[in-house]
């Protein structure tokens, strides 16, 4: 893939790119003016939310090559060869990730718009730092804005999830929807 990377030329303004999304290889045709956020949504990854489109709100956060990044600022063609995790790759309704469980149980979700980005940022935090302090959580979720709940319940949810991951607890494993 590296060699192919050397030159990407738009044909009639369209680039052909290959990327891995939630562990599955995908090929997209993307316009030279298109952003990863729009390309993902066009291909059905609707959890990646379009909030501000200027890199301010964090609703479009995805894990891009291992780190949280903002899909609204990534030209789609530069995602050629990259690995992306969206919240669809984290857990399902039947088998949610501990962070997803904790966000529901803590009542951290109101309208839900900011939650995919917030959970992906939190996941990266907990992967790097399994026992973050409240201050560390607050700083880490700095770039994920929420207009409903007031930044209290989400912090509690991340702490709850951290504790459960540490203790190997899982509430809803295999539970039918």
């Amino acid at each position, binding site marked *: 893939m590296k060699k192919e*990377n050397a*030159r*990407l030329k*738009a044909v009639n303004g369209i680039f052909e790119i290959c990327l891995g999304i939630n562990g599955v290889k995908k090929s997209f045709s993307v316009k030279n*003016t298109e952003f990863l956020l729009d390309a993902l949504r066009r291909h059905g990854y609707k959890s990646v939310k379009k909030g501000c489109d*200027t890199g301010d709100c*964090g609703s479009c956060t995805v894990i891009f090559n291992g780190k949280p990044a903002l899909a609204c*600022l*990534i030209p789609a063609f*530069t995602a050629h060869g990259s690995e992306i995790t969206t919240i669809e790759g984290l857990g399902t309704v039947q088998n949610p990730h501990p962070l997803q469980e904790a966000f529901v149980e803590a009542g951290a979700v109101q309208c839900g718009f900011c939650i995919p980005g917030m959970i992906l940022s939190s996941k990266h935090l907990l992967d790097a730092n399994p026992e973050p302090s409240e201050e560390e959580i607050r700083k880490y979720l700095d770039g994920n804005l929420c207009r409903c709940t007031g930044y209290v319940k989400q912090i509690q949810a991340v702490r709850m999830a951290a504790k459960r991951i540490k203790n190997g607890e899982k509430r809803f494993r295999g539970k039918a929807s």
Partner: protein
Amino acid sequence: MPELILKPGTLKELWLLPPAPGGSRKYLAGGTDLVSGSNAGMDASQVWVDISDIKELKGIRETKNSLIIGSGVKISELSGSGLISRWLPALRSAIPHFASPSLRNMATIGGNAATASPCADGVCALCAERADVWLELGGKKRKIALQNFFSGPKKTVLRRDELITAFEVPKWKHAGVYLKLGPRAYFGIAKASVAVALELDGEKVRSASITLASVSPVPLMAVKTANYLKGRVLNYDNARTAAALVKTEVSPITDARSEAAYRREMSGVLLERALNSVILTGRMSQVAG
């Protein structure tokens, strides 16, 4: 947005690329400024060169007397670096103020300089750390002091197609701190900020570098204030006099983010707080050790 994306893997490959037809090429690194600018119609380049794979631009290494920070180093990589923690206290203390964690995973320190925003946190701190910047064009290298790299708001001395390859920062024993006043504690654009690097000899200041952002067209080296502190004892009284002096050095404007008079006043307040924090940290380390 471009029609052609070139993605060289080395500097040698980069300089073998043909010149862009009818205009200069644009270098794409983290993309946080170029992409949002292009999105807003501020860039019409047809050819973008994606430099994120160029290996010479990556990594932080140490020589006998300096640190070399590749221009492609992401801001989040700076915060994880033991070399930065050890040698560059002002830069280290600027990192939490730099945008948000996800933007820090994308933005590069080279891009922070290339954008040449008067409010840039990273390069303000690097100026106080006395950094030089390495530039390269067609394999020809030159090195200039970072403070001389900026020629105006969003303007630099970069020649057409010239690339920032690295920052070279001297290793010198000093205390340093970065303070920023924004609309909120984090993830804001500064109304004013100050980076201070002080070489101390006991309680005396052997040498000082003071850089302010958002209060002049380019990162401002407060030379008069730094000279005032040189040779003086670092105490609260001298910090207050330095704060009064720095207010005469800044040249702020009124814009969407703040007013000139407030920015001038806050430049003094921030410098006094920064110097006081160095005094307090010094006392605490004396108690500790």
